[in-house]
């Protein structure tokens, strides 16, 4: 080939190759990092639980307050609704956690009329130690809720340890919830 004098714009011809190198680096990184592109994560994990203020679902009980999260025992906070089918799917697991494992579960009916939520719990069984409702979803905003069901694990010191943005499954109970609870208590 002919010898070409080196010009200043010579680097320009390398630009596409460099762009590719950067892109490929990112792609390789994303493949080995094992990230799940579908998860949107949670900003709350590792931070103190947001404020818990909700009227109680049960007519004769006092309203829910932050004190419930500082009892020295870990607790689960579960957001649900009577109109939500995935909530029905995870319901037996919650019942098992409450009755067999003796875990405190605080239920919050989200954008759900209290009488409908009450009726639903009567029909499906009530796994909740305490239950409240958040009719307009204003409390859930602080919890970063994107829908129902979502479940938070709060440790004995009131710190959020886990945030599951989906109906909980058997494998979540075995591999995530129970180990954390055992480690915490």
């Amino acid at each position, binding site marked *: 080939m002919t010898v070409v004098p080196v010009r200043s714009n010579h680097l320009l011809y390398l630009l596409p190759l460099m762009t590719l190198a950067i892109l490929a680096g990112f792609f390789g990184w994303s493949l080995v990092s094992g*990230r799940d*592109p579908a998860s949107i994560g949670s900003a709350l994990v590792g931070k103190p639980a947001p404020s818990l203020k909700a009227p109680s679902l049960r007519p004769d009980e006092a309203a829910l307050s932050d004190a419930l999260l500082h009892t020295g025992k870990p607790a689960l906070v579960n957001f649900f609704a009577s109109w939500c089918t995935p909530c029905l799917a995870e319901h037996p697991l919650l019942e098992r956690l409450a009755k067999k494992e003796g875990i405190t579960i605080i239920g919050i009916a989200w954008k759900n009329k209290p009488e409908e939520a009450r009726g639903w719990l009567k029909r499906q069984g009530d796994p909740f130690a305490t239950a409240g409702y958040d009719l307009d979803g204003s409390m859930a905003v602080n919890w970063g809720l994107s829908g129902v069901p979502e479940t938070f694990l709060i440790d004995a010191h009131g710190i959020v340890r886990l945030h599951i943005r989906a109906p909980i499954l058997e494998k979540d109970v075995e591999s995530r919830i129970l180990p954390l609870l055992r480690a915490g208590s």
Partner: protein
Amino acid sequence: MIPELGHYALILALAVALVQASLPLVGAARGDVRLMTLGRTAALTQAALIVLSFAALTEAYVTSDFSVATVVANSHSAKPLLYKISGVWGNHEGSMMLWVLILSVFGAAVALFGENLPDSLRARALAVQAWVGVGFLAFILFTSNPFLRLSPAPPDGNGMNPLLQDPGLAFHPPLLYLGYVGFSVTFAFAIAALIEGRVDAAWARWVRPWTLAAWCFLTLGITLGSWWSYYILGWGGFWFWDPVENASLMPWLVGAALLHSAIVVEKRDALKSWTVLLSILAFSLSLLGTFLVRSGVLTSVHAFAQDPARGMFILAFLVIVIGGALGLYAWRAPTLQPGGRFQPVSREGALIVNNLLLCTLCATVLLGTLYPLFLDLVNGAKVSVGPPFFNTTFVPISFALFAAMCVGPFLGWKRAELWPALVRLRAAFAVAVIGMILAATMIDRHATLAAIAFGFGVWLILASILEFADRTKLGRAPWAETRRRLATLPRASIGMTISHTAVGFVVLGAVATSTWNVELIRTFRIGDSAPFAGWQATLTNVEQVRGPNYDAERATITLTRDGNPYVVLTPERRMFRVQQRETTETSIRTNFLRDVYATLGEGDALKGWTIRLYDNPLAPWIWLGAALCALGGFVSLSDRRLRIGAPKRSRIVAQPAE
């Protein structure tokens, strides 16, 4: 037995591809004609073997051979024949088979029709094509073999995703792949030219038809995909800026840039290294699209076969092919001799503007598609880049492109005056402004972007027709003169008029549908009636119907105006027996100026059914326009000048027309 034959043929094809990838290169370097011709023989053999292999796989699907694992996973004996056949490529393994099938058939086409190419250029181009083939064949054989057997064979298959059982989608992947893989030919020619160190008009004449063909098929593929999502997903939209849609849009944009810049190389011997770069990029983006769909690095409604091991293989392949090509480019492109000079205001100048804008649009889409991935990796932040980003970036940039499309064709080669072109366009511009103002009065003032886009759509149609009228002296010379001019008008020029006009129609359709659509979501019991977009919509009946592999609920909705029936819509909800999955079958009635569109949601006789009704003005123009755009490309493709050696002959043929 037959699947084993297919498997064996595929392994042989890999061996032949390795020969095709190596020996012709040696031959071209040494000037050995025998080794160079070997490339042709190998390309034809490779194509024959892959056709055989693909036929074997198709046979397994058609006869429902459930001892083959992919047939079990993706087919079912009760499926209609069309979907048994489309099921071949409706899954990861089969779609890769379709990819290599098209690749090898294109290679064979280059081998067969490339007789008047220089021996060395043809040998090198075929070798580069074979390298791509080797990569994909190895990928299939080592990570995604479609011929694996199951023992014992299950009595029946799992069926195919019901959403994919649709005539539109049966042909969507083949058309898309014809486009993607078509760019592999221009890629091969670009690499061959870089190795030879020569890019000239003859080279451009070879690259342009392949680019055009690939681009036309890609246009049709994207159109069909968009149409499918419009009528099957039941959301009423036509483009969602989904990563997989974007993955097909990027090569389309660069391909459009390439087919314009190839004109400049052909006619003016300029823009050579840029055109070579675009050829590489068009195919690179096609590969990137494949990677994004298959590796699962992005979320999408379309993603199938998300498997990190496969992702790694494709990424490695991507880096070798694209990295090698761009490395070669960085090394050899500076040596390409710059050609003809031209003034900034000229046809060449306008085409450069067009190229820059199309590439900017492509970069915008690339950034919007990959940004969530980058951010997530860098600091773990989860963002989603959606329509708002693209509406504020893509749309305004495309306005500049539309303006260039209006003015550019009026400029002469080498040097031109801008002012006379603008004067020629003044009437069209005035009408467009009136259209824009009319549009603006019909929408609220926040949608100024839509009004401007509407104006550009009108301008584009008028300017394209005006340019055509200018060339044929339509209405300004006797009809005989016009007819004579029309007969001698190059097909490429007619094709341009058709495609540019078509883009105007697409713009009008997209703007009208997204701005003036009327939507009604309501629960209807049988006999219920509600006002909708000037009609009275009534649910008259809901019945059970039984299809070949599904059961369905079919609603009958009557639209009346002042008591006169206008249209009857029959949307369905289908429950597929094998997969136990539901799909919605929308019902669309169109008069080519508006679509009335209905979907049936969940419900029962007691509570009523949720029914969604849409009135989408000008919606059919989006797909008709896009199809017309592809048609313009095909007309241009039929231009004699695109065939090497043809110019002389065409002049002789053109004489009797006088």
